[in-house]
């Protein structure tokens, strides 16, 4: 697989509305750290949604992990999503599941035994320094802690790529730093491709990254 994401002349729109992204070209290689920035409403999240198949491209090509997203069947899309880890600004944890069970989710979907799921979840919770809160429920945790749980869940199944939609948007400085460290570690130690949609690229990241900037529906690669 040459590119993890290959978009050629990609046009995205919601239903019959005017396109949000027009004729975009993006190539993302394995183990790259990528930022997608732009003003509010510029279509950053729309690009991310198209990558995990929430919206279908109107025109052009969009290959994710070698799979063409256009006209993909729901069973194939389910399979593809099992290779991705997704993090949202609003965490999207299952509130009536414990922290540990939330982290186990991608492994349960992957069909791993309960023993393996628990072991891996505990390892990741230890990694995000929340093992002592494994039995708590998400709403008993602070925002920063919930996002760390969401990160642990996104990493649980060793995904090929992590897609993060403004992962630090709701967090204080300390929690944001923890999340950036986790994303950086995923790239450096696990070889994961990381695609982050954000308003602001942290100055203290200390790694090489690719940067796409969105304006008026056009995607520019910033060198």
């Amino acid at each position, binding site marked *: 697989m040459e590119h993890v994401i290959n978009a050629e002349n990609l046009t995205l729109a919601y239903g019959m509305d005017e396109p949000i992204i027009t004729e975009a070209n993006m190539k993302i290689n394995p183990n790259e750290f990528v930022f997608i920035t732009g003003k509010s409403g510029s279509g950053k999240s729309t690009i991310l949604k198209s990558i995990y198949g929430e919206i279908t491209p109107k025109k052009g090509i969009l290959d994710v992990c070698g799979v063409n997203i256009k006209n993909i069947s729901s069973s194939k899309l389910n399979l593809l*999503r*099992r290779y*991705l880890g997704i993090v949202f600004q609003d965490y999207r944890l299952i509130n009536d599941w414990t922290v540990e069970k939330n982290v186990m989710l991608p492994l349960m979907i992957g069909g791993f035994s309960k023993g393996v799921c628990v072991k891996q979840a505990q390892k990741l919770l230890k990694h995000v320094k929340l093992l002592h809160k494994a039995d708590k429920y998400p709403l008993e945790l602070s925002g920063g802690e919930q996002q760390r749980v969401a990160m642990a869940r996104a990493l649980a199944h060793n995904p090929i790529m992590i897609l993060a939609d403004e992962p630090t948007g709701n967090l204080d400085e300390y929690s944001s730093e923890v999340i950036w460290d986790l994303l950086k570690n995923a790239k450096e130690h696990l070889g994961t491709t990381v695609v982050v949609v954000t308003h602001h690229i942290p100055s203290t990241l200390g790694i090489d990254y690719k940067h796409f900037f969105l304006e008026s529906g056009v995607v520019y690669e910033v060198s």
Partner: protein
Amino acid sequence: MKSLKNHLSVILPLFVLLFSLQFTFLTDKIVEDYSKKLTQDYSIVVVAPKTLSSAVMKSRVKGIKSIEEISSKKILDRLKGNISSKNISLLKIALPKFYSMKLKSFPSVKEIERIKKKLLSTGLVTKVETFSKTHNRVYRMFQVLKNTAFVFSVFILIISVLLMFKQMKIWLLEHRERMSVMALFGAPFWMKSAVLYRLVIVDSFISTILVAGTFIFFPSIEKVKDFAQSMSISIPKFDILIDTSILLGVSLLFSLFIVSIVIRKMNKE
């Protein structure tokens, strides 16, 4: 508390649905049983100039169970005091044969007319008395009872299904967030919906047990027994194996069908 309320919202319509279904079965069985008893008591009187052969009549007219000659001796004995013995002998020769005819099942109004026509068309019978007035009244009463139970059940079924649809939609809205999170990580349909299927399966079992319990307990109440006795009806026993299996099957079929429709509809939206 909320969970109990959620369960009750499905258990209650399911219970009513199964109850009305079992009630219809029960009514059918009682009516069937009662009509069997009536069939034993009901007979058609046939007048024939000559002796009738049971085998011939059975082969010509369908539905005849037995034919029995009604002895004219009693009538003639009553007349002995008023008429001379010579005239009695003449009367004996001239008197036609009377037969009581029993049928295999309790006939409908149409069937009774058919049998009457068929008997007369054989040329062996001169008169047929079906006692149709009394028969028709009883038959119509049965029909009203059966149809009322059926209409009642259909009405209850529609209401129950609508209530279940509504409750499933509420459940689905409650679980939507969880299902969408699961979908983001590639969970298959069955896994996303498993919790809803599990809930309806549990509720189906509970409803079936409640209905089975009601129909086992109900006929053992003294007042119900007395009532049945006063009406000369016997309440059929609830067959734990067969009746429970039917109820459980119907319950699962309805609830799984409804939950599948609601989930698929929501997924499309």
